């Protein structure tokens, strides 16, 4: 579809996208949070009965460490010093990915550069960076996208210059094919189903047409369409 005037809607801040994403995490879940907006989700699940996994090799990782609590042997995937929660345990990175690949993560929340109509996601390689297609920072993203029971993407709805990030087909190198279950952006919550992308929630004050104007594939409008609630 043609995007005429590139419209940029502000909608939710990064912190509030993360807050909305945190609602997807229920008591009893094992969760892995990627870098970027997903990391902020950890602030909003304090007090929930969930276990965060750190891909470096830890279950029940606690909040960021400060001052005297900083232990140089205790960091997360973003190289930030973190703390322990009661009941935590350590294991190798190999074991960590055995858990991830083996399907033991109920939810993985990752950022992305693009998500397609079929639930493909691209996030590890931006060609604008000028590297060949096979060169970039993959890290744990492919294993997480492929292994988690439920994959949720948190991202801005458009690029800084207003181009859609929800596209017919991803043009950037893929992280995984067909695995995305839900996309939470600054202006919309979208479910990925066999038939396509279902618009479930919109930022208060915006219409489905507003969301469609900055989304490439034709959106299916949910019969229970409502406003994003935090």
């Amino acid at each position, binding site marked *: 579809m043609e995007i005429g005037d590139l419209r940029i809607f502000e909608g939710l801040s990064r912190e509030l996208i993360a807050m909305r994403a945190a609602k997807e995490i229920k008591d009893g879940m094992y969760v892995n949070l990627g870098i970027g907006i997903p990391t902020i989700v950890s602030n909003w699940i304090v007090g929930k009965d969930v276990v965060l996994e750190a891909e470096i090799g830890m279950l029940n990782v606690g909040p960021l460490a400060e001052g005297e609590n900083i232990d140089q042997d205790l960091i997360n995937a973003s190289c930030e010093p973190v703390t322990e929660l009661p009941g935590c345990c350590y294991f190798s990175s190999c074991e960590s*990915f055995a858990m991830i690949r083996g399907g033991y993560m109920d939810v993985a929340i990752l950022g992305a550069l693009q998500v397609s109509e079929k639930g493909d996601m691209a996030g590890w390689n931006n060609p604008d960076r000028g590297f060949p297609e096979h*060169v970039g920072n993959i890290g744990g993203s*492919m*294993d997480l996208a492929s292994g988690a029971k439920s994959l949720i993407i948190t991202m801005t709805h458009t690029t800084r210059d207003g181009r859609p990030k929800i596209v017919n087909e991803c043009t950037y190198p893929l992280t995984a094919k067909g695995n995305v279950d839900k996309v939470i952006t600054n202006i919309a919550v979208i479910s990925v189903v066999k038939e396509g992308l279902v618009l479930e929630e919109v930022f208060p004050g915006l219409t489905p047409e507003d969301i469609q104007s900055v989304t490439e594939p034709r959106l299916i409008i949910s019969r229970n369409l409502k406003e994003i609630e935090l």
Partner: protein
Amino acid sequence: MDKICHSVDEAVADISDGSIIAIGGFFTAGTPVHLIQALARHGAKDLTIICQSVGPGNEDISQLVIKGQIKKAICTYPFYRSATKGAEHPFENSVRAGKIDVEVIPMGTFIEKLRAGGAGIAAFYTATGVGTVVERGKEKKMFNGKEYLLELAIKPDYTFVYAHKGDRAGNLAYRKTARNYNTEMASAATITIASVENLVEPGDIDPDHVHTPGVYVQRVVKIERPQNFYPTID
């Protein structure tokens, strides 16, 4: 059995040009910086380095880049910044200039290839990377209606390990997230060199708490715990 080396320089002295070396550490945690510094001093070149990253928290590996010792890097999160931003960094510049060949592997596959190399597993199937550039040139097979890629084991010539405690039999114990890749990398290599903060007597490490059995380790050297900094990864 006495596997103790008296210095890191002694421990790396026989590393020849063209060696394949796995280096433990996840950014700043558990990275054997003293061994890497010794390798830079030693000067062996045309090296293939297998490590998470050449950049954030690994400025010592950058020394190998600057000195032109690296021919190829096998990494999982090689560069200093995220997918969207570039950075002025010796490794990134060397890759762009074609001076260093870089192979990027998904993290789970990366460490499982090393585990397989030390465990007599020639190859294994994983679903990670199906439908992406990672699948190029690889055999695919269906199991229970799902597609998997055939990935091959890696067996390095050397591994550099960082451990919290080690004894002269080569038994190692790690601390918290400084363990990360060290365990499986230690088992993979023909010659594993362990730098340890605490050199203890056999029996001091509780047998139930040995993370790397001594059979995998050929050389042990005592080092002083470094002070780490925390670079911005993204």
